[in-house]
């Protein structure tokens, strides 16, 4: 899928060479332009766009979902389809992160729908966190409260966080073939302690697949951040339905 674009690339005119003044765009144009700027990883433009929309009276939640999350969803789809690559996704993520940094305190003040809570971390022996950070960011963008344990997490650290935070979801990430089996160690320990059924366990990482997720006893394997968000929403809704039934 290509990005919706106010000023499509490849249609150069004199106007393209003029600087776009974000504050002069209508709300709809500005949101589309922010999708473009996010796609291009333009951090300062995103910060400016966020501030303009807030000044125009937009709720922080609407700015987050309609400008940032919607823009990052386009980035995610193009990454999945092989149109964008990791460096471009990282630049877009940096831009979104900068926008979210402005919105976070405002979201706390104004309130926003809370979808649930997630504890997430990369497993022991593994220092890779790019995918995990993207998932954490998109989960936050979708309204989840996220506690990020960082990298190289032992089973003890996961269990401690679960018991202290009581999240809905545990997310585990691994990039290496050699470290991904550690996810099973964590899940087996949860079973031993009688904790397994209290949490939704989602796993992800480049060498994983659905079969691996099933084999280790996770609830789902999520191949990218967008899938993680959708899967988390489905499982949380199911959990709430079970509780209210």
């Amino acid at each position, binding site marked *: 899928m290509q990005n919706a674009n106010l000023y499509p690339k490849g249609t150069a005119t004199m106007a393209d060479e003029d600087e776009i003044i974000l504050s002069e765009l209508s709300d709809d144009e500005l949101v589309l332009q922010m999708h473009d700027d996010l796609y291009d990883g333009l951090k300062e433009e995103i910060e400016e766009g966020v501030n303009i929309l807030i000044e125009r009276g937009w709720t922080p939640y609407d700015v987050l979902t309609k400008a940032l999350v919607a823009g990052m969803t386009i980035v995610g789809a193009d990454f999945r389809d092989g149109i964008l*690559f990791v460096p471009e996704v990282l630049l877009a993520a940096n831009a979104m992160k900068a926008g979210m940094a402005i919105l976070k305190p405002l979201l706390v003040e104004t309130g926003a729908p809370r979808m649930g809570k997630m504890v997430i971390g990369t497993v022991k022996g*593994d*220092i890779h966190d790019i995918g995990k950070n993207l998932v954490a960011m998109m989960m936050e963008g979708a309204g989840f409260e996220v506690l990020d344990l960082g990298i190289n997490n032992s089973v003890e650290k996961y269990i401690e966080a679960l018991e202290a935070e009581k999240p809905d979801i545990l997310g585990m990430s691994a990039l290496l073939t*050699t470290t991904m089996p550690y996810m099973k160690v964590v899940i087996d320990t949860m079973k031993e302690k009688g904790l397994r059924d209290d949490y939704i366990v989602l796993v992800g990482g480049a*060498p994983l697949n659905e079969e691996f997720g099933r084999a280790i006893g996770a609830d789902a394997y999520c191949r990218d951040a967008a899938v993680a968000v959708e899967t988390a929403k489905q499982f949380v809704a199911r959990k709430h339905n079970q509780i209210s039934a």
Partner: protein
Amino acid sequence: MALGPATLDDETLTEQGLALTAQDMASGRVLLIACGALAHEIVALKRMNGWDHLDLQCLPANLHLWPDRIPAAVAAAVTQHRANYDRLFIVYADCGTGGLLQEKCNELGVEMIEGPHCYSFFEGNAAFAALAETEFTAFYLTDFLVRQFDAFVWRPMGLDRHPELRDMYFGHYTKLVYQAQTDDPALDAKAQDCAARLGLAYERRVTGYGDLAPALARVAGA
């Protein structure tokens, strides 16, 4: 383009691999289907040991940029050549396929080299596993990857265009370990430069061919 072993060019090994020559196909009984990143080492071992009955076909080394494509590429090569050989041996480790390559090899009835990746079997799988607890913040390069650092690390990660991303990729790494298959001062210097560009400490470790040598000896002798 078919490239004979006498003219191993790294860029071609990265992009295209190494095709079998007509001469190879007439003489070999065993075919090694390997990653292009291992071509130099396999050719050197063949030469040192006189394993003329082992033919070599390499798939493009840059398949490592898309590990999910490796099982299908290996399967296609197996299907193409298996009728012409008594035995096929796959010189790929798991290489980020999450067990899918092993599964594919099982399905095809062919053997592959053991280990999670070439850093492991060059070090020796047992030795590498023993280091896992203490060395998981190391970034490894082999001879081939030192020579092809820009093609496999710098450019695919976008560091040529966006050097500011470096610490997002490498912020948690502490050192670059150059696993030297050969004694080459020029490669040593280049590897040191790679470490500096990534902002990492540098260590050169002579591994030679590690577990690759006995694995191929077993195939050659079987």
